[in-house]
């Protein structure tokens, strides 16, 4: 199997007349952590959602884990099994307990039997520190706990790559750390990750590669320390100045 897990080329996406992605080329290699940063409206979430085809691109190709997602004849459900997705709003199934949230797709999609699905679910809940919440309903959990449960739900499917769409943006500041810790641990275990985030500290310390997007294009990409520490482009510099030092951004 190829060493490149995600390969995006010439990707274009428009909503009506609004061009959100204007030709994106990027790739993620096995075991790599790639962070996408950029101002809101830059198209970074749309790019992520094109990777598992939650948004249908207008042009270009996306190949993930050997599946050409943009091929109209691809078995999209099968392809998505290998792609874990974590959303900004968690999106746990509100009518199911935490444990059921983790087992439902294992059983209905991967056809694992109940015992196996529950064993795998519990292993992943332990990993994110939520084993004792298995019987709770999502609404009984804090935002940070919900997001960690959502990560565990995606992991229970044994994905080849995990997509994170601003996973900490909806959290109270004091809950962000728990989620980032879980993500950092995942990265250390060698999980392939594509992360849209505003957490510069996380990107700098965990990412192998950082992409800065603005206006639907990748403005700058490179090693995390370089893009965040010594950005080459003026747009990257001014964005980072605003994000890293919001109080003095107007000066």
């Amino acid at each position, binding site marked *: 199997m190829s060493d490149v897990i995600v390969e995006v080329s010439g990707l274009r996406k428009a909503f009506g007349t609004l061009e959100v992605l204007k030709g994106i080329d990027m790739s993620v290699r096995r075991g790599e952590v790639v962070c996408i940063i950029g101002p809101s409206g830059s198209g970074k979430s749309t790019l992520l959602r094109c990777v*598992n085809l939650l948004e249908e691109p207008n042009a270009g190709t996306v190949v993930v884990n050997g599946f050409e997602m943009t091929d109209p004849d691809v078995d999209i459900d099968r392809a998505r099994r290998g792609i874990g*997705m974590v*959303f900004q709003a968690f*999106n746990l199934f509100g009518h199911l307990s935490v444990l059921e949230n983790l087992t*439902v*797709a294992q059983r209905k999609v991967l056809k694992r039997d109940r015992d196996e699905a529950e064993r795998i679910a519990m292993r992943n809940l332990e990993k994110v520190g939520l084993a004792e919440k298995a019987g709770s309903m999502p*609404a009984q959990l804090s935002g940070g706990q919900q997001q960690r449960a959502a990560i565990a739900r995606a992991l229970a499917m044994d994905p080849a790559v995990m997509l994170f769409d601003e996973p900490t943006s909806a959290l109270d500041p004091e809950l962000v750390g728990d989620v980032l810790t879980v993500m950092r641990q995942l990265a250390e275990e060698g999980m392939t990750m594509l992360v849209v985030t505003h957490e510069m500290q996380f990107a700098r310390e965990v990412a192998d590669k950082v992409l800065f997007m603005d206006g639907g294009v990748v403005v700058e990409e490179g090693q995390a320390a370089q893009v965040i520490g010594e950005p080459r482009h003026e747009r990257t510099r001014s964005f980072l100045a605003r994000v890293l030092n919001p109080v003095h951004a107007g000066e």
Partner: protein
Amino acid sequence: MAMSRRKRAQVIRGVQYAVLVLAILLVVLLADWQTIGSQFFNLEAARTQIPEVITTALVNTAVYTALGFAVGFGLGLVFALMKLSSVGPYRWIATAYIEFFRGIPALLVFIALGFGVPLAFNLKFDVYSTAAIALGLVGSAYIAETLRAGIQAVPKGQIEAARSLGMSAARTNVTVVIPQAFRIILPPLTNELILLTKDSSLIYLLGLFRDDFELAKFGREGLNATNSMTPILLAGLCYLLITVPLGHLSRYLEGRTGRKSERGLKVTA
């Protein structure tokens, strides 16, 4: 004129109580209490109604309503799905159907089904079939809209989460959308059941045998026989016996689901 907030609140409350007392006084003074007593609370007339008002009339009302609701739910689900379909003609047909049956009085549906359709198609329906179909047609238009709204009220993120886990569109509907939509629609669906309970009184148009009488018809027959309003009051109370518990059930479910989503929102906010 400067009035303190407390003073103003006192005046407003005082006026409201005064109006209430006045209205009660008016009713008490104007009503003919003797006639009301003999007309509405005539024990002898009441005795002629028992036990059939329960064993026949109440049971028939419940059965007609249940049959109508079952048909209405089935048809409603079909038209709700048609209205959500990506196939244009399905949506148009569903829209036309819903507009039609939501817009015409239930009375006309009963007449058409009781007399028009049997003539036109040379069919003969028994009372139960007519009740089931007529009430079903009337109810289905509202139920279809309720179901559609409920399905659409399930947050898009739930569907995206299911699809991103590799569930097919159909599997997502069965496992994620419909169970959550069901919670949302339970309260409005209960209200629809209450409306159908009352609409079931229109079945009298078909010309019923005594065993087929439902509450309203039974009450009116009682009125004719006893020359007293008591049977009507009794029939009314029997309706309340069905509808009030249903209303409480609806509010209970509403409160429960409301609390749940509120809590969910607070956490995601």
